[in-house]
Each structure stands twice: as structure tokens, then as C-alpha cells.
């Protein structure tokens, strides 16, 4: 009798863990979301993530936002997420395309599938590139974004004039790519000339000082591309205080509320908005589809841009791209 009971107990003990995945298969996936840093861009992405989670009835877990941009802040949070043991997918914006490979490989080894949003691993090509384990890379094409800024500026300037770039730091892939795309676009116009690019360390005061100096050096300067919020803010401030508001076009990247305020004040003349909401929503949708056995998901999705100007900023169709956190 005792032996029989023991046998039943053993069989049950073995069967329960076997049974769990079988029932989980019918269940919904558990998804983790890890942004790059606390800022409005990722906060809007989180809204997209939550919207998709509600639509698909899945649970999304966001432990915390990294306090600073860098692998040393993001990795511990990632490791804590892996250590939970209940996540099927992690949606994240890797803060470094090389340094985040190893920590994410460890997550993959623990049975978690990865989707990268906004930023990428390796060279972003998950089919032929050095890193192929993520399901997909959903994000803007920053070279394309720079090109859109370049074409938009060229159009406003009638395809001629001297232009200048305010960049943040050397070695940051996204802003470098925006600068590169901008330069590519400008070089297609024979009457346009790039007179330089300065680095402001993501500081508006420095950007303003540098731009003031360039305005003095180049009286014929017609347009400036600020690759992110602080770059454009400083450049726009310098232009406005030189009495050149309207005469020098300033194009800003990223549609934070601050950027839109500056658009309304005439400090910048155009804002290029990314679509973080789309990135977040699509990433959850992709995870869900993968869970349901969809195997033809694209490995790269570019989410595109919206161009916001003083003329269209009040149009709800455009205004919804402003990075607005309620």
C-alpha cells in the first residue's frame, strides 16, 4: 500500500512539471519591457506597449527605467528580469550595440526571446549580420531620419544655402547616423553647402555658444540641423538672440513637449518626430504573434517619421506624434 502511494506520488511529481508547459502553451506569453533610459521618448513607447498588452490581453512587466544611458545601468535590470524565470519575451532598447550582446545572449540561453526596439545589436541586420538571435528590430532608421531633415531643410531653403549641424557626442550611433543622413541629403543639392558640424556634449549652453560663434563666422548661414532636443534648443536660442529667427531655419529631431514649445515660440522651425508608440505596440504584437506560432515576422521594421511644423502642429493627425506623457 505504502509503496503504491509512493509510486503515485512520484508519478504525480514528475507529471506536474510536464503538464505546466502544456497548459502554458494555451495561455498568454509573459513579456518584459526594458527601455534605454527615463525620458519622454521611452515613456511614450511604454504607452504603446501597454496599449498592445491590453488589446492582446497579455501581461507586460517593466521593473524600472535605467537611471542613466549605459550598459552598467541597463544590464543589472536585465539580469533581474532574466532571474525572475517567468518571462517568455523581453522587449528592450539595447543601450550599446556591442556591450549588450553578452547579457542578452545569457537571456536567450535562459529561454527568453528578444525583440529590440529603437536601438539594435551588432549592425541591426538580424539575418546576415553578426548578431542574429533577436526576433526583430523595430525602430526608426536614423540615417533616413537625417535624410528627411536634410530634404525638409532643402525644400524650405529652395535647394540652396549654407547649412550647419549641431551634434551631441562622437560615437553615439543614433545621432551620428542622423548627422550622416543629413549630410547625404544635403550633398545631393549642388547649391547647398555644409559648413561644419560641432559637438555639444548634449548640453544646450554649449550648443548655443557654438552656434553663436558659427553665426558670426558665416553671415550667410541659412539652416541648422540639431540632432536632438538639446542641440536644437541651444542652436535655436542662439539664432533667435541674433535676431535671425525665421532667417535661419532650425530643424530639431525628436518631438518632446519642449521641442514643440520651441516650435510655437519660433525658436525652431521644424521638428522631426519618431514614432515610439508604434515601436512599443508593434513589439508586443510581434511577441504575441511569435507565441502563436507566426514564423514570417520581418526581422527589421522601420517605423518612419512625422514632420511637424508651425503650420500643422495643431492638426490632431500630426499632433498625436508629440511625445506627450499624460
Amino acid at each position, binding site marked *: 500500500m505504502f509503496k503504491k502511494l509512493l509510486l503515485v506520488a512520484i508519478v504525480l511529481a514528475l507529471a506536474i512539471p510536464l503538464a505546466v508547459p502544456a497548459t502554458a502553451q494555451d495561455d498568454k506569453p509573459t513579456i518584459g519591457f526594458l527601455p534605454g533610459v527615463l525620458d519622454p521618448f521611452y515613456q511614450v513607447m511604454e504607452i504603446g506597449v501597454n496599449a498592445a498588452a491590453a488589446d492582446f490581453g497579455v501581461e507586460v512587466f517593466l521593473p524600472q527605467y535605467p537611471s542613466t544611458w549605459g550598459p552598467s545601468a541597463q544590464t543589472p535590470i536585465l539580469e533581474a528580469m532574466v532571474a525572475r524565470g517567468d518571462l517568455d519575451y523581453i522587449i528592450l532598447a539595447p543601450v550599446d550595440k556591442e556591450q549588450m550582446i553578452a547579457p542578452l545572449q545569457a537571456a536567450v540561453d535562459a529561454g527568453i526571446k528578444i525583440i529590440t526596439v529603437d536601438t539594435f545589436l551588432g549592425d541591426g541586420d538580424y539575418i546576415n549580420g553578426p548578431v542574429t538571435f533577436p526576433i526583430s528590430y523595430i525602430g526608426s532608421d536614423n540615417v533616413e531620419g537625417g535624410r528627411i531633415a536634410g530634404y525638409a531643410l532643402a525644400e524650405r531653403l529652395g535647394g540652396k544655402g549654407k547649412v550647419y549641424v549641431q551634434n551631441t557626442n562622437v560615437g553615439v550611433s543614433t545621432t551620428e547616423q542622423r548627422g550622416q543622413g543629413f549630410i547625404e541629403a544635403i550633398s545631393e543639392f549642388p547649391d547647398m553647402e555644409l559648413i561644419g558640424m560641432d559637438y555639444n*556634449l548634449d548640453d544646450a549652453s554649449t550648443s548655443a555658444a557654438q552656434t*553663436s560663434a558659427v553665426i558670426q*563666422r558665416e553671415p550667410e548661414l541659412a539652416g541648422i540641423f540639431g540632432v536632438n532636443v538639446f542641440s536644437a534648443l541651444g542652436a535655436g536660442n542662439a539664432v533667435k538672440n541674433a535676431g535671425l529667427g525665421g532667417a535661419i531655419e532650425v530643424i530639431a529631431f525628436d518631438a518632446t513637449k519642449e521641442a514643440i514649445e520651441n516650435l510655437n515660440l519660433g525658436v525652431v522651425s521644424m521638428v522631426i518626430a519618431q514614432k515610439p508608440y508604434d515601436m512599443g505596440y508593434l513589439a508586443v504584437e510581434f511577441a504575441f504573434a511569435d507565441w502563436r506560432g507566426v514564423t514570417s515576422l520581418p526581422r527589421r521594421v522601420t517605423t518612419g517619421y512625422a514632420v511637424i511644423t508651425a503650420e500643422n502642429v495643431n492638426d490632431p493627425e500630426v499632433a498625436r506624434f508629440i511625445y506627450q506623457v499624460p
Partner: protein
Amino acid sequence: MTVDSRAEALPRRAVSRRVARQKQAILLVSRVWSWIFLAIMVVFFSIEGTGFFTVRNSQNILVAIVPVLLMGLGQTFVIIAAGIDLSVGWVMGLSSVVSALVIRDLADGGMAVGLAILIGFVAGVGSAALAGLLNGVIIAKLKVPPFIVTLGVSFIARGAAFLLSGGNVVGGQPQALRDLGNEALLYLQRGDETRLYFLKKPDVTGAQLRMLDRILPWPVVIAFVLVLIAMFILHRTQFGRHTYAIGGNKEATKRAGVPVDRLTILLYVMSAVTAGFAGVLYTARFSGGSSIAGDALMMSSIAAVIIGGVSMFGGEGRVSGTVLGALVIAVLQTGLIMMAVEPFWQYVIVGIIIILAVLMDQARDLIIGRAEAE
């Protein structure tokens, strides 16, 4: 050899007079070399750089030095007293965020804009003073090295600024604040008839607007007033004399009955307060509070203090030196851009000047020391 043998032949009093003269000459050179360097730079950039020697550029440079100068101003006192304050950058950010939040909320709540701005400024500078108080108390009372304490407080200030702002730029500021950050005491209208306007901005538009130079923008005026106050405190008051004394020999100062602990706390509060002013002026200039406002410029502010001849070993330095140091950095930055030089050279050159400044300092000590021993 001949000099030495002649010196031996001279009477004792003549030798000491010669030494005193020598000492004075060396002191003079060590004090003015950076002014001479600045003058050479200005002349060089005026010849080589397009648009450098203009009224407008002089004002651009003055505006550019404000955050570096203000963060360096209190720091000058701290370093003279043989301390260091590494928290000024993030304290500036904290002050920027706090002032922006207070001004926005009060103005939105219907308070008169002027009063809201005033209260916001007090709150911003007050939050900075609180961080300075924390620095000072731990350094003075718990005897923790300032390097460690201010590093720790820097992180706390950073965290507080991010928590308060939620990582966002705090926008939604009233127009009056933007005017305070960007308008000026005087306006110079160039063109057919050059005219100077006091306080009132002439009503011009379009191309005329480009011929309008803002002379002494408000942030520059405020920074200038703070510099004068700092000069008075350091060079004319007992507090100033005690600051030098603490840097020269802390123990002896304490034995002489000077309340060193209390003074130390005050010094760090002062350092935080000037950084706090940098923060509120950032908020005014860019009409938004940013937690990272001071991060990029913190090291430049310490560089300015060192280039200005303040000894890192304490006991020596002047406020005018820090003004000069900030000017050297801003002139260099502006000048190199006007010459269209690759921007990264700026760092290399600033680095060389810092080391030169310290070498100059040491050489002086060495020569004076030897002269005294003679």
C-alpha cells in the same frame, strides 16, 4: 657665479632688497601670465577668425561664460580653503529643475508672473543651498574628505533632480522668464544711425533685428553682480581672510580661535548657491528646467578656477582669476569655431593650459621658496 660672488660682497640689507624685488617680479609674472595669454588669444583670433572682434561676439562670449563662471565662483572659495566641490554640476541641474517646477506651477496657479519667478529663483537657489549645507555639515562635523562627500551629494542631487522632473525637461514657462534669460540691459542698434537704447528694446523687425546687439544680457548682469559680491567677501572681509587661513594651515587657524567648522559649512553653502544661480539662469535662458544642465560644464568650471591661478593646495587665488579662467575657455571655444578648426582641438588646448597653469604655480613656489632660503 659672478652674480653670486657679487651678492656675497654686498651688505645684507641689499641682498634682501634684491630678493624682495625678484620675488615681486616673479609674483607679477605668475599673476599676469594668463592675462597676457588671453590678450594674445584675443589678438590672434581677431586677425584669424571671421567675426571674432565684434560687439555681438563679445556679448556671446560673456553669455557663454555665465554657467562656467558661476559654478567656479563658489568653487574658488572652496579650493582656496583647500577643499573641492564636485557636486556643483548636478546641484546646478537640481536648482534648474526646482525653479522651473515652482515657476510653472505658481504661474499656472494664477500668481503674478514676476512674483512666481522670484519665488522660483529663491526655491531653486534654496534647494542648491540645502545640498551645500549637506556637503558642509558632513565635511566639517563628520570629518569625511570633501572629495568623497561632494561626490556623494552630487549623486543625491542628480537623483533628486531626475525624480522631481521625471527625466523630462520642465517646460511650460511664462514669457517673462524667457525675457529675463534672453533680454538685455542695453541694446545697440547698428546701421544708418547707430543708437543705444537703455532697458527698452527698440521696436524693430526683419533685417533691422539683425543689426540689433544685446549689450549685457540679464544673466551676465546677474553673474557680474555675484562676482562683485564674491570679490568683496574674499578680499575685503574677515570671512575672506579666514578662508585663506584655512587653506594655508587649518590646524593653526583652528588654534587661533577661528570657528573653522562653521566657516567650512558656509563655504560649501556658498559654492552650492552660486551653482544654484547658474541653474536658475539656465532655466530662464532656455525657458525650461533640465536635470543635466550642469553636467557637461562642471569640469570646465574647475578648469577655469585652476587656469585662474587658484592653488589646488589651498591658501592662494583670487576671484578675478576665475573670471579670467572662464574667459580663456570661452574665448578659445569661440575662436576655434571662428577659425573653423576641428572642434576637438579645444579639449587638447584646454588640457595643456590647465597643466601649464599648475606648472606656473609650482615654479613660482619653488623660486620664491629658494629665494627665501638664500
